[in-house]
Protein backbone atom coordinates (compact mmCIF):
# COMPACT_ATOMS: atom_id res chain seq x y z
CA UNK A 1 0.00 0.00 0.00
CA UNK A 2 1.48 3.33 -1.08
CA UNK A 3 2.00 6.09 1.51
CA UNK A 4 0.86 8.74 -1.02
CA UNK A 5 -1.54 11.12 0.75
CA UNK A 6 -3.79 13.03 -1.61
CA UNK A 7 -4.14 16.10 0.65
CA UNK A 8 -0.47 16.51 1.69
CA UNK A 9 1.39 15.04 -1.29
CA UNK A 10 -1.22 16.17 -3.80
CA UNK A 11 -0.83 19.78 -2.60
CA UNK A 12 2.97 19.65 -2.99
CA UNK A 13 2.59 18.33 -6.55
CA UNK A 14 -0.14 20.91 -7.35
CA UNK A 15 2.01 23.84 -6.16
CA UNK A 16 4.95 22.59 -8.22
CA UNK A 17 2.82 22.21 -11.38
CA UNK A 18 1.25 25.66 -10.96
CA UNK A 19 4.66 27.31 -10.44
CA UNK A 20 6.09 25.65 -13.53
CA UNK A 21 3.17 26.61 -15.76
CA UNK A 22 3.26 30.26 -14.64
CA UNK A 23 7.04 30.49 -15.17
CA UNK A 24 6.85 28.73 -18.54
CA UNK A 25 4.08 30.92 -19.92
CA UNK A 26 5.22 34.27 -18.53
CA UNK A 27 8.40 34.40 -20.66
CA UNK A 28 6.64 33.81 -24.01
CA UNK A 29 6.49 37.58 -24.63
CA UNK A 30 10.26 37.65 -25.19
CA UNK A 31 9.98 35.44 -28.29
CA UNK A 32 10.21 37.51 -31.47
CA UNK A 33 12.41 35.50 -33.84
CA UNK A 34 12.98 31.87 -34.82
CA UNK A 35 16.43 32.10 -33.17
CA UNK A 36 14.78 33.13 -29.88
CA UNK A 37 12.40 30.18 -30.14
CA UNK A 38 15.00 27.54 -31.01
CA UNK A 39 18.12 28.66 -29.10
CA UNK A 40 16.86 31.42 -26.76
CA UNK A 41 18.57 34.10 -28.86
CA UNK A 42 21.91 32.43 -27.92
CA UNK A 43 21.89 34.30 -24.60
CA UNK A 44 22.18 31.31 -22.24
CA UNK A 45 24.90 31.61 -19.59
CA UNK A 46 26.84 28.87 -17.74
CA UNK A 47 24.70 28.11 -14.65
CA UNK A 48 21.40 28.18 -16.45
CA UNK A 49 23.02 25.86 -19.01
CA UNK A 50 24.15 23.43 -16.29
CA UNK A 51 20.63 23.36 -14.78
CA UNK A 52 19.02 22.87 -18.18
CA UNK A 53 21.40 20.15 -19.37
CA UNK A 54 21.13 18.21 -16.11
CA UNK A 55 17.31 18.49 -16.01
CA UNK A 56 16.94 17.54 -19.68
CA UNK A 57 19.11 14.45 -19.43
CA UNK A 58 17.33 13.06 -16.39
CA UNK A 59 13.76 11.85 -16.90
CA UNK A 60 11.65 9.17 -15.22
CA UNK A 61 12.82 6.71 -17.90
CA UNK A 62 16.44 7.49 -16.96
CA UNK A 63 15.65 7.00 -13.28
CA UNK A 64 13.94 3.66 -14.02
CA UNK A 65 16.73 2.15 -16.11
CA UNK A 66 19.59 3.43 -13.93
CA UNK A 67 17.81 2.03 -10.84
CA UNK A 68 17.34 -1.22 -12.77
CA UNK A 69 21.11 -1.20 -13.48
CA UNK A 70 21.73 -0.97 -9.72
CA UNK A 71 19.29 -3.82 -9.09
CA UNK A 72 20.76 -6.08 -11.81
CA UNK A 73 24.48 -5.25 -11.63
CA UNK A 74 25.03 -3.67 -8.19
CA UNK A 75 27.36 -0.68 -7.95
CA UNK A 76 29.02 -1.73 -11.22
CA UNK A 77 25.76 -0.69 -12.91
CA UNK A 78 26.86 2.95 -12.45
CA UNK A 79 29.84 2.41 -14.80
CA UNK A 80 28.12 4.09 -17.81
CA UNK A 81 27.67 7.23 -15.68
CA UNK A 82 31.40 7.40 -14.94
CA UNK A 83 32.19 6.91 -18.64
CA UNK A 84 29.68 9.60 -19.63
CA UNK A 85 31.17 12.04 -17.11
CA UNK A 86 34.72 11.36 -18.37
CA UNK A 87 33.65 11.87 -21.99
CA UNK A 88 31.83 15.11 -21.19
CA UNK A 89 34.72 16.44 -19.10
CA UNK A 90 37.25 15.65 -21.87
CA UNK A 91 35.09 17.25 -24.59
CA UNK A 92 34.39 20.28 -22.39
CA UNK A 93 38.06 20.85 -21.52
CA UNK A 94 39.35 20.44 -25.08
CA UNK A 95 36.37 21.83 -27.00
CA UNK A 96 36.66 18.76 -29.26
CA UNK A 97 34.00 19.22 -31.99
CA UNK A 98 31.72 21.41 -29.83
CA UNK A 99 33.98 24.48 -30.21
CA UNK A 100 33.92 24.52 -34.03
CA UNK A 101 30.23 23.55 -33.90
CA UNK A 102 29.27 26.58 -31.78
CA UNK A 103 31.61 28.90 -33.67
CA UNK A 104 29.96 27.94 -36.96
CA UNK A 105 26.73 29.67 -35.83
CA UNK A 106 24.45 26.87 -37.05
CA UNK A 107 21.10 26.01 -35.41
CA UNK A 108 21.42 22.22 -35.81
CA UNK A 109 24.00 19.53 -36.52
CA UNK A 110 22.76 18.69 -40.06
CA UNK A 111 23.07 22.39 -40.99
CA UNK A 112 26.81 22.10 -40.29
CA UNK A 113 27.00 18.92 -42.38
CA UNK A 114 25.49 20.72 -45.39
CA UNK A 115 28.36 23.22 -45.44
CA UNK A 116 30.80 20.37 -45.92
CA UNK A 117 28.86 17.52 -47.52
CA UNK A 118 25.94 19.19 -49.34
CA UNK A 119 22.14 19.34 -48.93
CA UNK A 120 21.54 15.61 -49.49
CA UNK A 121 23.62 14.66 -46.45
CA UNK A 122 21.89 17.40 -44.44
CA UNK A 123 18.44 15.93 -45.15
CA UNK A 124 19.60 12.31 -44.62
CA UNK A 125 21.21 13.22 -41.29
CA UNK A 126 18.05 15.13 -40.32
CA UNK A 127 15.85 12.10 -41.01
CA UNK A 128 18.16 9.73 -39.09
CA UNK A 129 18.32 12.13 -36.10
CA UNK A 130 14.55 12.73 -35.97
CA UNK A 131 13.70 9.05 -36.45
CA UNK A 132 16.11 7.94 -33.71
CA UNK A 133 15.02 10.74 -31.38
CA UNK A 134 11.26 10.32 -31.76
CA UNK A 135 11.28 6.54 -31.44
CA UNK A 136 13.38 6.85 -28.30
CA UNK A 137 11.02 9.47 -26.92
CA UNK A 138 8.03 7.26 -27.68
CA UNK A 139 8.63 5.22 -24.50
CA UNK A 140 8.87 8.22 -22.18
CA UNK A 141 5.19 8.87 -21.46
CA UNK A 142 4.02 5.35 -20.72
CA UNK A 143 7.10 4.44 -18.65
CA UNK A 144 6.79 7.70 -16.71
CA UNK A 145 3.09 7.04 -16.14
CA UNK A 146 3.75 3.50 -14.92
CA UNK A 147 6.30 4.80 -12.40
CA UNK A 148 3.84 7.41 -11.07
CA UNK A 149 1.01 4.87 -10.83
CA UNK A 150 3.29 2.47 -8.92
CA UNK A 151 4.51 5.01 -6.35
CA UNK A 152 1.15 6.73 -5.82
CA UNK A 153 -0.75 3.44 -5.68
CA UNK A 154 -3.56 4.59 -8.01
CA UNK A 155 -5.66 1.72 -9.32
CA UNK A 156 -5.67 1.05 -13.04
CA UNK A 157 -8.94 -0.87 -13.07
CA UNK A 158 -12.52 0.34 -12.76
CA UNK A 159 -14.03 0.23 -9.28
CA UNK A 160 -16.69 -2.50 -8.73
CA UNK A 161 -20.10 -1.15 -9.71
CA UNK A 162 -18.70 1.70 -11.81
CA UNK A 163 -20.01 1.95 -15.34
CA UNK A 164 -20.01 4.22 -18.39
CA UNK A 165 -17.67 7.21 -18.47
CA UNK A 166 -16.60 6.85 -14.82
CA UNK A 167 -15.49 3.24 -15.37
CA UNK A 168 -13.68 4.19 -18.58
CA UNK A 169 -11.87 7.05 -16.85
CA UNK A 170 -10.83 4.86 -13.93
CA UNK A 171 -9.51 2.22 -16.29
CA UNK A 172 -7.52 4.85 -18.21
CA UNK A 173 -6.11 6.83 -15.26
CA UNK A 174 -2.56 6.45 -16.54
CA UNK A 175 -3.34 7.62 -20.09
CA UNK A 176 -5.48 10.55 -18.90
CA UNK A 177 -2.93 11.75 -16.33
CA UNK A 178 -0.06 11.61 -18.83
CA UNK A 179 -2.19 13.32 -21.51
CA UNK A 180 -2.87 16.24 -19.15
CA UNK A 181 0.83 16.39 -18.25
CA UNK A 182 1.91 16.41 -21.89
CA UNK A 183 -0.66 19.11 -22.76
CA UNK A 184 0.80 21.31 -19.99
CA UNK A 185 4.35 20.77 -21.24
CA UNK A 186 3.28 21.34 -24.86
CA UNK A 187 1.49 24.59 -23.92
CA UNK A 188 4.58 26.34 -22.59
CA UNK A 189 6.94 24.78 -25.14
CA UNK A 190 4.74 25.84 -28.08
CA UNK A 191 4.38 29.39 -26.80
CA UNK A 192 7.80 30.05 -25.31
CA UNK A 193 10.14 27.64 -27.14
CA UNK A 194 13.68 27.33 -25.78
CA UNK A 195 13.17 30.31 -23.47
CA UNK A 196 10.33 28.59 -21.60
CA UNK A 197 12.30 25.34 -21.67
CA UNK A 198 15.32 27.00 -20.00
CA UNK A 199 13.28 28.81 -17.32
CA UNK A 200 11.20 25.74 -16.44
CA UNK A 201 14.34 23.54 -16.56
CA UNK A 202 15.85 25.80 -13.89
CA UNK A 203 12.85 25.29 -11.57
CA UNK A 204 12.67 21.60 -12.42
CA UNK A 205 16.39 21.11 -11.68
CA UNK A 206 15.91 22.52 -8.17
CA UNK A 207 12.78 20.44 -7.40
CA UNK A 208 14.30 17.29 -8.95
CA UNK A 209 17.59 17.70 -7.05
CA UNK A 210 15.83 18.36 -3.72
CA UNK A 211 13.80 15.17 -4.17
CA UNK A 212 16.74 13.00 -5.25
CA UNK A 213 19.05 14.16 -2.45
CA UNK A 214 16.38 13.80 0.25
CA UNK A 215 15.29 10.30 -0.85
CA UNK A 216 18.91 9.10 -1.07
CA UNK A 217 19.79 10.56 2.34
CA UNK A 218 16.76 8.80 3.86
CA UNK A 219 17.74 5.47 2.27
CA UNK A 220 21.30 5.75 3.58
CA UNK A 221 19.94 6.68 7.01
CA UNK A 222 17.28 3.97 7.30
CA UNK A 223 18.69 1.09 5.22
CA UNK A 224 22.36 1.91 5.82
CA UNK A 225 25.43 1.76 3.56
CA UNK A 226 26.60 -1.50 5.15
CA UNK A 227 23.34 -3.26 4.24
CA UNK A 228 23.62 -2.08 0.60
CA UNK A 229 27.21 -3.38 0.33
CA UNK A 230 26.25 -6.70 1.97
CA UNK A 231 23.34 -7.16 -0.46
CA UNK A 232 25.49 -6.47 -3.53
CA UNK A 233 28.19 -8.83 -2.23
CA UNK A 234 25.65 -11.58 -1.54
CA UNK A 235 23.76 -11.32 -4.86
CA UNK A 236 26.48 -10.27 -7.33
CA UNK A 237 29.81 -11.09 -5.65
CA UNK A 238 32.85 -9.09 -6.80
CA UNK A 239 31.09 -8.42 -10.14
CA UNK A 240 28.72 -6.08 -8.27
CA UNK A 241 31.65 -3.72 -7.63
CA UNK A 242 33.79 -4.27 -10.72
CA UNK A 243 32.27 -4.30 -14.24
CA UNK A 244 35.22 -6.29 -15.62
CA UNK A 245 34.49 -9.09 -13.10
CA UNK A 246 30.72 -9.20 -13.76
CA UNK A 247 29.73 -12.15 -16.00
CA UNK A 248 27.12 -10.10 -17.92
CA UNK A 249 29.33 -7.02 -18.37
CA UNK A 250 33.09 -7.38 -18.98
CA UNK A 251 35.25 -5.30 -21.33
CA UNK A 252 32.79 -5.39 -24.31
CA UNK A 253 30.15 -3.72 -22.08
CA UNK A 254 32.63 -1.08 -20.91
CA UNK A 255 34.02 -0.38 -24.40
CA UNK A 256 30.54 -0.23 -25.98
CA UNK A 257 29.35 2.20 -23.29
CA UNK A 258 32.50 4.33 -23.67
CA UNK A 259 31.81 4.68 -27.43
CA UNK A 260 28.06 5.19 -26.91
CA UNK A 261 28.55 7.88 -24.28
CA UNK A 262 31.21 9.74 -26.26
CA UNK A 263 28.84 9.66 -29.25
CA UNK A 264 25.98 11.02 -27.13
CA UNK A 265 28.14 13.80 -25.69
CA UNK A 266 29.17 14.84 -29.21
CA UNK A 267 25.94 14.49 -31.16
CA UNK A 268 22.81 13.80 -29.07
CA UNK A 269 20.80 16.82 -30.22
CA UNK A 270 19.15 17.50 -26.83
CA UNK A 271 22.64 17.76 -25.30
CA UNK A 272 24.37 19.82 -27.97
CA UNK A 273 21.44 22.22 -28.23
CA UNK A 274 22.76 23.66 -24.93
CA UNK A 275 26.06 24.34 -26.69
CA UNK A 276 24.22 25.96 -29.60
CA UNK A 277 22.14 28.12 -27.19
CA UNK A 278 25.24 29.23 -25.23
CA UNK A 279 26.33 32.81 -25.72
CA UNK A 280 29.74 31.69 -27.03
CA UNK A 281 31.88 28.57 -27.48
CA UNK A 282 33.71 29.09 -24.18
CA UNK A 283 30.38 29.17 -22.29
CA UNK A 284 29.31 25.96 -24.05
CA UNK A 285 32.55 24.26 -22.96
CA UNK A 286 32.06 25.44 -19.36
CA UNK A 287 28.50 24.05 -19.35
CA UNK A 288 30.00 20.67 -20.33
CA UNK A 289 32.82 20.60 -17.76
CA UNK A 290 30.58 21.78 -14.90
CA UNK A 291 27.74 19.38 -15.70
CA UNK A 292 29.99 16.35 -16.26
CA UNK A 293 29.99 15.05 -12.66
CA UNK A 294 26.20 15.15 -12.64
CA UNK A 295 26.26 12.11 -14.93
CA UNK A 296 27.94 10.04 -12.20
CA UNK A 297 25.12 11.07 -9.85
CA UNK A 298 22.58 10.39 -12.62
CA UNK A 299 23.55 6.70 -12.54
CA UNK A 300 24.78 6.20 -8.98
CA UNK A 301 21.91 7.84 -7.04
CA UNK A 302 19.05 5.89 -8.68
CA UNK A 303 21.44 2.90 -8.65
CA UNK A 304 21.50 3.15 -4.83
CA UNK A 305 17.66 3.22 -4.88
CA UNK A 306 17.73 0.04 -7.02
CA UNK A 307 20.16 -1.69 -4.62
CA UNK A 308 17.96 -0.68 -1.67
CA UNK A 309 14.99 -2.24 -3.51
CA UNK A 310 17.07 -5.40 -4.02
CA UNK A 311 17.83 -5.48 -0.27
CA UNK A 312 14.17 -4.98 0.66
CA UNK A 313 12.37 -7.08 -1.98
CA UNK A 314 14.95 -9.71 -2.95
CA UNK A 315 16.35 -10.74 -6.36
CA UNK A 316 13.15 -12.51 -7.51
CA UNK A 317 11.32 -9.19 -8.09
CA UNK A 318 10.75 -7.65 -11.55
CA UNK A 319 13.92 -5.57 -11.94
CA UNK A 320 12.24 -2.60 -13.66
CA UNK A 321 9.36 -2.31 -11.15
CA UNK A 322 11.41 -3.02 -8.02
CA UNK A 323 12.49 0.58 -7.31
CA UNK A 324 9.02 2.26 -7.56
CA UNK A 325 7.46 -0.61 -5.58
CA UNK A 326 10.07 -0.16 -2.86
CA UNK A 327 9.72 3.64 -2.70
CA UNK A 328 5.89 3.44 -2.55
CA UNK A 329 6.05 1.88 0.90
CA UNK A 330 9.42 3.20 2.09
CA UNK A 331 8.77 6.96 1.92
CA UNK A 332 6.41 8.66 4.39
CA UNK A 333 3.59 11.04 3.37
CA UNK A 334 5.03 14.46 2.57
CA UNK A 335 8.22 12.98 1.13
CA UNK A 336 6.06 11.06 -1.35
CA UNK A 337 4.83 14.41 -2.65
CA UNK A 338 8.41 15.64 -2.99
CA UNK A 339 9.38 12.45 -4.86
CA UNK A 340 6.42 12.69 -7.26
CA UNK A 341 7.06 16.42 -7.84
CA UNK A 342 10.77 15.64 -8.44
CA UNK A 343 9.95 12.90 -10.93
CA UNK A 344 7.33 15.05 -12.68
CA UNK A 345 9.97 17.80 -12.89
CA UNK A 346 12.46 15.33 -14.36
CA UNK A 347 9.95 14.10 -16.93
CA UNK A 348 8.55 17.50 -17.92
CA UNK A 349 12.00 19.02 -18.47
CA UNK A 350 12.99 16.07 -20.67
CA UNK A 351 9.74 16.10 -22.66
CA UNK A 352 9.84 19.84 -23.35
CA UNK A 353 13.49 19.84 -24.41
CA UNK A 354 13.13 16.78 -26.60
CA UNK A 355 10.00 18.11 -28.32
CA UNK A 356 11.81 21.34 -29.13
CA UNK A 357 15.00 19.56 -30.19
CA UNK A 358 13.40 17.28 -32.77
CA UNK A 359 11.17 20.14 -33.94
CA UNK A 360 14.28 22.25 -34.59
CA UNK A 361 15.76 19.54 -36.84
CA UNK A 362 12.48 19.03 -38.74
CA UNK A 363 12.11 22.79 -39.32
CA UNK A 364 15.73 23.64 -39.96
CA UNK A 365 16.88 20.62 -41.98
CA UNK A 366 14.06 18.45 -43.30
CA UNK A 367 11.92 21.43 -44.34
CA UNK A 368 14.99 23.36 -45.60
CA UNK A 369 14.17 22.86 -49.34
CA UNK A 370 10.74 24.47 -48.81
CA UNK A 371 12.28 27.54 -47.19
CA UNK A 372 14.61 28.43 -50.08
CA UNK A 373 12.65 31.62 -50.88
CA UNK A 374 13.05 32.74 -47.29
CA UNK A 375 10.23 32.75 -44.76
CA UNK A 376 9.35 35.67 -42.54
CA UNK A 377 10.12 35.33 -38.81
CA UNK A 378 6.39 35.20 -38.09
CA UNK A 379 5.85 32.35 -40.55
CA UNK A 380 8.91 30.50 -39.23
CA UNK A 381 7.64 30.78 -35.66
CA UNK A 382 4.19 29.54 -36.69
CA UNK A 383 5.72 26.49 -38.38
CA UNK A 384 7.95 25.72 -35.41
CA UNK A 385 4.96 25.85 -33.07
CA UNK A 386 2.94 23.59 -35.36
CA UNK A 387 5.79 21.06 -35.50
CA UNK A 388 6.10 20.99 -31.68
CA UNK A 389 2.31 20.46 -31.48
CA UNK A 390 2.58 17.69 -34.09
CA UNK A 391 5.32 15.93 -32.09
CA UNK A 392 3.12 16.16 -28.99
CA UNK A 393 0.23 14.55 -30.91
CA UNK A 394 2.58 11.82 -32.21
CA UNK A 395 3.76 11.05 -28.68
CA UNK A 396 0.22 10.76 -27.40
CA UNK A 397 -0.88 8.44 -30.19
CA UNK A 398 2.28 6.36 -30.65
CA UNK A 399 3.62 6.19 -27.14
CA UNK A 400 0.51 6.35 -24.95
CA UNK A 401 -2.89 5.68 -26.48
CA UNK A 402 -1.98 3.35 -29.37
CA UNK A 403 -1.43 -0.20 -28.06
CA UNK A 404 2.06 -1.06 -29.35
CA UNK A 405 2.32 -4.50 -30.84
CA UNK A 406 6.04 -4.66 -31.48
CA UNK A 407 8.97 -4.34 -29.12
CA UNK A 408 9.51 -0.57 -28.80
CA UNK A 409 12.76 -1.00 -26.90
CA UNK A 410 14.15 -2.91 -29.88
CA UNK A 411 13.17 -0.12 -32.27
CA UNK A 412 14.78 2.36 -29.89
CA UNK A 413 17.95 0.30 -29.69
CA UNK A 414 18.23 0.04 -33.45
CA UNK A 415 17.40 3.66 -34.28
CA UNK A 416 19.58 4.88 -31.41
CA UNK A 417 22.59 2.94 -32.69
CA UNK A 418 21.96 4.01 -36.30
CA UNK A 419 21.97 7.65 -35.14
CA UNK A 420 24.81 7.50 -32.61
CA UNK A 421 27.19 5.32 -34.65
CA UNK A 422 27.22 7.50 -37.77
CA UNK A 423 26.59 11.09 -36.61
CA UNK A 424 29.80 11.41 -34.50
CA UNK A 425 31.83 10.10 -37.45
CA UNK A 426 30.30 12.79 -39.69
CA UNK A 427 30.91 15.49 -37.07
CA UNK A 428 34.54 14.56 -36.40
CA UNK A 429 35.30 14.29 -40.13
CA UNK A 430 33.45 17.55 -40.82
CA UNK A 431 35.46 19.43 -38.19
CA UNK A 432 38.92 17.89 -38.49
CA UNK A 433 39.44 15.91 -41.72
CA UNK A 434 39.98 17.97 -44.85
CA UNK A 435 39.64 15.01 -47.21
CA UNK A 436 36.22 13.96 -45.91
CA UNK A 437 33.64 13.92 -48.71
CA UNK A 438 29.88 13.54 -49.23
CA UNK A 439 30.46 9.96 -50.46
CA UNK A 440 32.25 9.14 -47.21
CA UNK A 441 29.41 10.69 -45.22
CA UNK A 442 26.73 8.68 -47.05
CA UNK A 443 28.82 5.49 -46.68
CA UNK A 444 29.19 6.15 -42.92
CA UNK A 445 25.41 6.62 -42.46
CA UNK A 446 24.74 3.40 -44.40
CA UNK A 447 27.44 1.39 -42.61
CA UNK A 448 26.28 2.66 -39.20
CA UNK A 449 22.80 1.35 -40.04
CA UNK A 450 23.75 -2.03 -41.53
CA UNK A 451 25.24 -3.65 -38.40
CA UNK A 452 22.41 -2.93 -35.91
CA UNK A 453 19.71 -3.77 -38.47
CA UNK A 454 21.51 -7.03 -39.42
CA UNK A 455 21.97 -7.95 -35.76
CA UNK A 456 18.30 -7.29 -35.06
CA UNK A 457 17.22 -9.35 -38.09
CA UNK A 458 19.40 -12.31 -37.05
CA UNK A 459 18.07 -12.02 -33.50
CA UNK A 460 14.46 -12.20 -34.75
CA UNK A 461 14.99 -15.32 -36.94
CA UNK A 462 14.48 -18.43 -34.76
CA UNK A 463 17.25 -20.37 -36.54
CA UNK A 464 19.94 -17.77 -35.76
CA UNK A 465 18.54 -16.10 -32.63
CA UNK A 466 20.31 -18.21 -30.00
CA UNK A 467 23.60 -18.23 -31.95
CA UNK A 468 23.88 -14.43 -32.36
CA UNK A 469 22.99 -13.82 -28.72
CA UNK A 470 25.59 -16.32 -27.50
CA UNK A 471 28.39 -15.51 -29.96
CA UNK A 472 27.95 -11.85 -30.84
CA UNK A 473 25.61 -10.09 -28.40
CA UNK A 474 24.54 -6.42 -28.41
CA UNK A 475 27.90 -5.05 -27.21
CA UNK A 476 30.10 -6.56 -29.93
CA UNK A 477 27.52 -5.60 -32.57
CA UNK A 478 27.39 -2.04 -31.19
CA UNK A 479 31.21 -1.74 -31.19
CA UNK A 480 31.28 -3.07 -34.77
CA UNK A 481 28.71 -0.41 -35.86
CA UNK A 482 30.99 2.41 -34.62
CA UNK A 483 34.13 0.94 -36.18
CA UNK A 484 32.42 0.20 -39.48
CA UNK A 485 30.93 3.71 -39.72
CA UNK A 486 34.42 5.19 -39.18
CA UNK A 487 36.00 2.86 -41.75
CA UNK A 488 33.24 3.65 -44.28
CA UNK A 489 33.89 7.39 -43.93
CA UNK A 490 37.62 6.87 -44.65
CA UNK A 491 37.14 4.45 -47.54
CA UNK A 492 34.25 6.44 -49.09
CA UNK A 493 36.14 9.73 -48.88
CA UNK A 494 39.35 8.31 -50.35
CA UNK A 495 37.48 6.42 -53.09
CA UNK A 496 35.45 9.46 -54.14
CA UNK A 497 37.12 12.65 -52.90
CA UNK A 498 35.22 15.87 -52.32
CA UNK A 499 34.55 18.16 -55.28
CA UNK A 500 35.96 21.64 -54.93
CA UNK A 501 32.49 23.20 -54.44
CA UNK A 502 31.85 20.83 -51.52
CA UNK A 503 34.68 22.53 -49.64
Amino acid at each position, binding site marked *: MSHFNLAIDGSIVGIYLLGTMVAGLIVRK*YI*GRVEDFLV*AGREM*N*VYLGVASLAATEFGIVTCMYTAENGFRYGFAGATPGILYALAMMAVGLTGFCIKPLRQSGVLTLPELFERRFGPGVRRAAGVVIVLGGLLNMGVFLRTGGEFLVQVTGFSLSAAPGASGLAAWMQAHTLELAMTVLLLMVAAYTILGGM*LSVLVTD*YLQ*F*IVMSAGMITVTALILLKVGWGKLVETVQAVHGSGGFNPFAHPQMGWPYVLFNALLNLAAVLTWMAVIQRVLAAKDARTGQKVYTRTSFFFVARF*LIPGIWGIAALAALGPGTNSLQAMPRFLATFLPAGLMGLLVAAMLAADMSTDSSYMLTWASVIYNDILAPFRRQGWTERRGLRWNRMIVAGIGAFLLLYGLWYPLKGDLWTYCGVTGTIYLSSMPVLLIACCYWKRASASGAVAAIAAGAVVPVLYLALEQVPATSAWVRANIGPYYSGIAAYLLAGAAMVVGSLAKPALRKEN
Partner: protein
Amino acid sequence: MAPLFWKLLAAACLVWYSTITVYIMVRGFKDIREMLRKLKQTRNSVTSDE
Protein backbone atom coordinates in the same frame (compact mmCIF):
# COMPACT_ATOMS: atom_id res chain seq x y z
CA MET B 1 38.92 -1.76 -1.75
CA ALA B 2 36.13 -1.77 -4.37
CA PRO B 3 33.35 -1.03 -1.82
CA LEU B 4 35.47 1.87 -0.50
CA PHE B 5 35.72 3.32 -4.02
CA TRP B 6 31.92 3.29 -4.39
CA LYS B 7 31.47 4.68 -0.87
CA LEU B 8 33.75 7.64 -1.63
CA LEU B 9 32.10 8.17 -5.02
CA ALA B 10 28.60 8.11 -3.48
CA ALA B 11 29.69 10.58 -0.78
CA ALA B 12 31.26 12.84 -3.44
CA CYS B 13 28.03 12.68 -5.47
CA LEU B 14 25.85 13.73 -2.55
CA VAL B 15 28.18 16.53 -1.42
CA TRP B 16 28.71 17.82 -4.96
CA TYR B 17 25.04 17.55 -5.88
CA SER B 18 23.83 19.36 -2.73
CA THR B 19 26.40 22.15 -3.21
CA ILE B 20 25.77 22.64 -6.93
CA THR B 21 21.99 22.72 -6.39
CA VAL B 22 22.25 25.64 -3.95
CA TYR B 23 24.86 27.37 -6.12
CA ILE B 24 22.74 27.01 -9.27
CA MET B 25 19.65 28.20 -7.42
CA VAL B 26 21.42 31.53 -6.88
CA ARG B 27 23.55 31.88 -10.02
CA GLY B 28 20.95 30.38 -12.38
CA PHE B 29 18.39 32.97 -11.28
CA LYS B 30 20.89 35.73 -12.11
CA ASP B 31 21.48 34.12 -15.51
CA ILE B 32 17.74 34.12 -16.23
CA ARG B 33 17.38 37.80 -15.33
CA GLU B 34 20.37 38.72 -17.49
CA MET B 35 19.10 36.63 -20.42
CA LEU B 36 15.63 38.20 -20.30
CA ARG B 37 17.13 41.70 -20.03
CA LYS B 38 19.26 41.16 -23.15
CA LEU B 39 16.37 39.64 -25.09
CA LYS B 40 14.21 42.62 -24.16
CA GLN B 41 16.95 44.99 -25.38
CA THR B 42 17.20 43.08 -28.67
CA ARG B 43 13.42 43.22 -29.16
CA ASN B 44 13.36 46.94 -28.44
CA SER B 45 16.21 47.67 -30.89
CA VAL B 46 14.54 45.56 -33.62
CA THR B 47 11.22 47.38 -33.04
CA SER B 48 12.88 50.82 -33.15
CA ASP B 49 14.77 49.88 -36.39
CA GLU B 50 11.42 49.00 -37.99
